[in-house]
């Protein structure tokens, strides 16, 4: 199995000389199984160049797994070339919207409505299929197995655990570690904390012994208090969770759009020293970078 980052930026694309090293496209990861099965995790703007790169493989069967439907994770989908080409088979997996009770297909079709995009979903030439994902569900794509888990974000967000040939790749999508909504002197504090602790250990189990973990690390530890509840992780929380889960290799992603390459490296260096990264048995930590291909 191998994978390639096509977009590592959070919230909104951030092109320009300040971000050219790590890249300005929003979230998109290409994962290939041992038999070249093609899985794409999220359809941020990075999916546009990915689509161009796939032309030699047409006609093509591929599966897109959407972690959640915030713009930065779906905005590239209408410009993803394979959906316009007859003969291609595209299956999109994602969460239904429980509030409006719309399926993932309906949620995504809305960004191709007349006011937003010239081509309607019904006019796509590829054969399109949409499947709602439920928590804990396993989807088999050739020799690749994908299991989902609901993580904490301001909308339903599924993390995906991708396994093939004994190797494990995990992507969180956007995830903030759940926190206690009560103060320590509130009567509900202790019970709530117990539920939070249980949920956190379930998430760690979901990461357990992964060969690669790609994890939302939007904020520095210092930035976090003013952004608590926004749905993203920190350098500190990602480092500690990866250690606890016994992960081998970690890529920190969802870089802040305002963070230049230099500032990103500075934040990473500071986190490494304040969390004493590099101790014995530590995972290998890296910043996710657009264009990088990793063999697992």
């Amino acid at each position, binding site marked *: 199995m191998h994978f390639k980052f096509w977009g590592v930026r959070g919230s909104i694309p951030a092109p320009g000389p300040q971000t050219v090293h790590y890249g300005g496209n929003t979230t998109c990861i290409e994962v290939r199984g041992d038999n070249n099965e093609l899985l794409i995790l999220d359809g941020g703007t990075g999916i546009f160049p990915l689509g161009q790169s796939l032309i030699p493989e047409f006609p093509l069967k591929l599966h897109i797994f959407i972690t959640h439907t915030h713009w930065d994770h779906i905005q590239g989908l209408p410009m993803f070339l394979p959906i316009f080409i007859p003969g291609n088979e595209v299956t999109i997996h994602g969460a*239904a*919207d*429980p*509030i*409006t*009770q719309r399926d993932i297909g309906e949620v995504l079709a809305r960004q191709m409505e007349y006011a937003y995009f010239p081509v309607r979903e019904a006019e796509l030439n590829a054969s399109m299929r949409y499947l709602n*994902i*439920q*928590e*804990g*569900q396993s989807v088999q794509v050739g020799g690749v197995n994908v299991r989902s888990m*609901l993580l*904490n*974000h*301001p*909308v*339903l967000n599924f993390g995906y655990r991708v396994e093939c040939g004994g190797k494990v790749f995990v992507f969180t999508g956007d995830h903030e570690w*759940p926190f206690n*909504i*009560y103060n320590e002197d*509130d009567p*509900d504090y*202790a*019970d*709530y904390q*117990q*539920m*939070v602790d249980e*949920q956190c250990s379930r998430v760690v189990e979901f990461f357990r012994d992964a060969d690669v973990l790609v994890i939302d690390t939007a904020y520095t530890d210092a930035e976090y208090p003013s952004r608590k*509840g926004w*749905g993203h992780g920190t350098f500190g929380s990602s480092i500690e969770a990866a250690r606890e889960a016994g992960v081998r290799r970690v890529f920190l992603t969802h870089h802040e759009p305002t963070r230049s390459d230099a500032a990103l490296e500075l934040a990473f260096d500071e986190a490494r020293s304040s969390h004493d990264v590099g101790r014995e048995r530590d995972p290998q930590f890296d910043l996710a970078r657009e264009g990088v291909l990793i063999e697992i």
Partner: protein
Amino acid sequence: MAIDATEVPDLVERMPAFPQGVTKVLDLASRPDCAPKALVQVIEHDPVMTMKVLKLVNSAYFGLSRPINSINHGVVYVGINTIKNLALSIAAIGMLPKSNKAGLDMNQFLAHSLGVASVAKLLATHLGVPDKDATDFFVAGLLHDFGKVVLAQFKPEVFRLCLDQAAEQQRSLHEVELESQGISHDEIGGRLAEVWKLPPSLAHAIHHHHHPERGPEDDGEGMCEAVFAANQIVRSLGFGDAGNPVIAEFPPLVSERFGTDLSGLMSILGDLSGEMEKARLFTQL
């Protein structure tokens, strides 16, 4: 005039919540600094919102591998923003009218539900149930009479006859309901909880709150008995009113569970006016 239980879930989809809950949710959600715990508190003091949120988080849309039995539990699993938007979508339906053609006073009903919820939670602690599960008793108490809201909303004429007849003849409301409509509020509430995949212990406690002995035997920690007892205690205190004129003595199963009868249990619990006052606060607009 029988009631078709199969049509009830669809009717309830479009049923609004209590004015107290709806007003507070709209107010809280319009504030950028809305504290999650404040929102949870409003939802968990409104029987309709609680029922509907539990219904949604236990539905296939989430596909969660375990049943969710409280609003807090739901927040941990699906996140506060999703719960907030669920509450907003319920608030958008409108509000239950304060009075209805059935003649059930919704403020008094809410007071009754909140009173039973609080006392059921106290009884959980009295039974040695761990704190985290005592919340489930509160939810069961809050939802035990949900079927009456359904009847008042959708079958007001026949429900009014039941209320009048029970009052005139000083008979148990659920027995009169059974006679005249073929189904009573406890069964309606219990069936809804079942259809909506709420945790089985909660569904049983709602379904059998007038006859704990008819529930499944392995009902765990005594939730159903606690709701039965709380129901009699709150009515003995004259707190709130949900239309049943009869205060029932404890059947053997309930007195065995608590080791005493109704008056015995009330003297063990002591002065409940503080608890009832707290409950009363949530009936104010």
